[in-house]
């Protein structure tokens, strides 16, 4: 029997995902038609042996209840949300709920960060782990460029055994191009290692009179558990070459959308409602005029209305939004209940990894550059935003429920 744990953090994290996370918790933001962590759940549920999925975070239970319910029904697997009473860090929450994870004595459990997107090769990862009896944790790793590697957990492996001999989280200088994907398989004995780390953290907390950490139970999985395990023959890394990305900024949503669509190749209806350029996810309850042209890389949510002569590409349109006649939407996210007027143009700039650099990842650019100007990014319309007819909205971010009255370029509209 196996289990899976998905770490989703809480509302005080994921601020770089604003304004998309203002209405929907980031883990539930739809990518390729499915909430971000439903892709994780689907991957776990595919494995027969996986009997329970535990979601750990500090969102309130009410924010997750409906989703957990829906997932239970869809995947016929036990899914529970465990709310941290206070943010305990990536390791603290996991350790806090150790009894829940150990219950039923699974032979191992998967650990997945909620903000990564990938083809999760869980079966291979588990087999790899099984083949190495001394392994407590096996990390899924991928290649990054030298320049970008330092923004991730960097690993050095012993060439033949694949044991991790050195692990450092976000180093200041170059260490290795093999990076941690935030996807692991762990043996239950890892909790003994965590207990020792927990003891060290607590000792440190009290000897420093609580000055060096927000909470005695606060623990970083990467720094307090993985780093010490390196070089002990208990930590291994399996390198994968498939697509992988983090979803940190709102801009990465469009990039992740494209790749998940490609990965899942949503089935097109036998008689498409309009001209579709694959890949497109079209919710069955969306109303689409036959003269619209949609795709590639578009996700259209439930209850969306798309009028005559509309063109949409490289975008996500959330539930119940309306795109009026002849409008163009590209490299943008249109929020729930938002409206784009006729002959309007809503356009963003893609922030994809450099296609000419092998292994390049998303640059999770800050909103503003060093001159204090908005970096070109995808255009985002918050929930309920109204874009009037015949205007252009270029590389702009509009916070929820704003009714615009003119065109905007390179602006954040509060």
């Amino acid at each position: 029997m196996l289990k899976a744990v998905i770490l989703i953090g809480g509302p005080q994290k994921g601020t770089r995902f604003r304004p998309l996370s203002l209405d929907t918790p980031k883990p539930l933001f739809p990518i390729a038609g499915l909430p971000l962590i439903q892709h994780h759940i689907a991957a776990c549920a595919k494995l027969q042996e996986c009997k329970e999925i535990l979601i750990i975070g500090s969102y309130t239970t009410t924010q997750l209840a409906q989703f957990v319910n829906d997932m239970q029904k869809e995947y016929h697997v036990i899914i529970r949300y465990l709310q941290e009473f206070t943010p305990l860090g990536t390791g603290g929450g996991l350790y806090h709920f150790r009894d829940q994870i150990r219950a039923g004595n699974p032979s191992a459990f998967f650990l997945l960060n909620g903000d990564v997107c990938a083809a999760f090769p869980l079966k291979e990862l588990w087999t790899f782990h099984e083949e190495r009896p001394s392994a407590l944790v096996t990390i899924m790793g991928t290649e990054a460029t030298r320049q970008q590697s330092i923004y991730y957990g960097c690993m050095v492996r012993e060439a033949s055994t694949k044991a991790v001999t050195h692990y450092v989280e976000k180093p200041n200088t170059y260490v290795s191009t093999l990076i941690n994907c935030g996807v692991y398989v762990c043996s239950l004995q890892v909790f003994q290692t965590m207990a020792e780390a927990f003891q060290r953290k607590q000792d440190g907390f009290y000897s420093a009179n609580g000055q060096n950490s927000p909470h005695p139970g606060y623990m970083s999985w990467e720094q307090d558990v993985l780093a010490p395990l390196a070089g002990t023959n208990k930590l291994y890394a399996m390198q994968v070459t498939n697509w992988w990305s983090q979803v940190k900024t709102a801009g990465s949503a469009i990039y992740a959308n494209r790749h998940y669509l490609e990965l899942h190749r949503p089935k097109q209806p036998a008689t498409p409602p309009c001209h579709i350029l694959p890949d497109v996810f079209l919710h069955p309850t969306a109303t689409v005029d036959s003269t619209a042209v949609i795709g590639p890389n578009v996700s259209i949510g439930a209850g969306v209305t798309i009028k005559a002569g509309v063109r949409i590409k490289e975008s996500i349109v959330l539930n119940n939004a309306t795109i009026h006649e002849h409008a163009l939407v590209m490299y943008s996210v249109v929020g729930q209940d938002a409206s784009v007027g006729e002959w309007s143009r809503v356009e963003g700039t893609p922030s994809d990894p450099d296609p000419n650099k092998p292994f390049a990842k998303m640059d999770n650019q800050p909103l503003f550059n060093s001159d204090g100007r908005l970096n070109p990014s995808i255009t985002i319309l918050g929930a309920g935003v109204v874009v009037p007819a015949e205007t252009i909205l270029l590389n702009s971010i509009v916070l929820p429920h704003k009714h615009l009255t003119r065109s905007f370029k390179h602006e954040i509209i509060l």
Partner: protein
Amino acid sequence: MCGSDKILGEIRALILVGGYGTRLRPLTLSRPKPLVEFANKPILMHQIEALVEAGVTQVILAVSYRADDMEKELKEQVSKLGVSLTFSHETEPLGTAGPLALARELLNTNSEPFFVLNSDVICDFPFKELAKYHKSHGKEGTIVVTKVEEPSKYGVVVYKENGQIESFVEKPQEFISNKINAGMYILNPSVLNRIELRPMSIEKEVFPFMAQDGQLYAMDLQGFWMDVGQPKDFLTGMCLYLNSLRQKNSDKLHDGTGVVGNVLIDPTAKIGKGCRIGPNVTIGPDVVIEDGACIKRSTILRGACVRQHAWLDGCIVGWRSVVGRWVRMENCTVLGEDVIVKDELYVNGGQVLPHKSIALSVPEPQIIM
């Protein structure tokens, strides 16, 4: 004494066509400026028709460039109007007065006054009234003046209540007059004695001296006036011109579904379904506007195509150019001849040279070579 048009019958006119028309590039890279269609008619034909209407029988074009093209094309159109067309070629640019000296022989054949006009001017041409007024005061010359809102940008004309001009003041800092030279004159042949065959400015080197001698009068222009020598003013002039057509209840203006405000559409143009055209749009012969396009304050020249769902505001689309589907163009974008703008692009204030294919958006105003 001047009750009969027959007296005006002998009047000649000289049009200062001049140089390369660089201000109206990229359109003038393909066609000499006087032949660029303004409201579906070459700029020059607006002037010649108005002159013919006033009884002019000989038009002299003072040109310094691409005269061959113009001669070929104009001769045909002009012969229908029953007026003779003469070209006076400058070997070097002679300014605004020099061309009169060059055409001295033609202008001196009788003692009747002759018209002189700049080729960029569009207005309700007042040639008949001008000739009458000129005869009535009996002095050497009359210039048409028009009112402007911001006189400090121009040279203004100061004149007495009876019309006699006192002085010209260049770019006045303090308000002194809001009347400027509208680029249309009527002159007696005696004025030729004040002009030499060299580059010479009529505004600076002839008129001030005539004013000093009390020989120059001003006549107020009624209605609109525009120098359409550059794209921005070309479009403004088009709006004024179409509005003037509306006031004259002209049947040339187009009505029908999808048409808003003053719109001129050549009968050979094809307009698709679900379009919104206007206000202030001119669509030339053989133009195709596909379904669902929206066009405002723009001129679409002969043979161009605006494809589905495109949105245009404040644009001049050159001959045989193609504007792709879902393209947005605005802010005084000018496409030269045979330009292709690919689907879904945004062009903001682009000046695109002829025969160019645009595959990337132009988010800020720039010239596309």
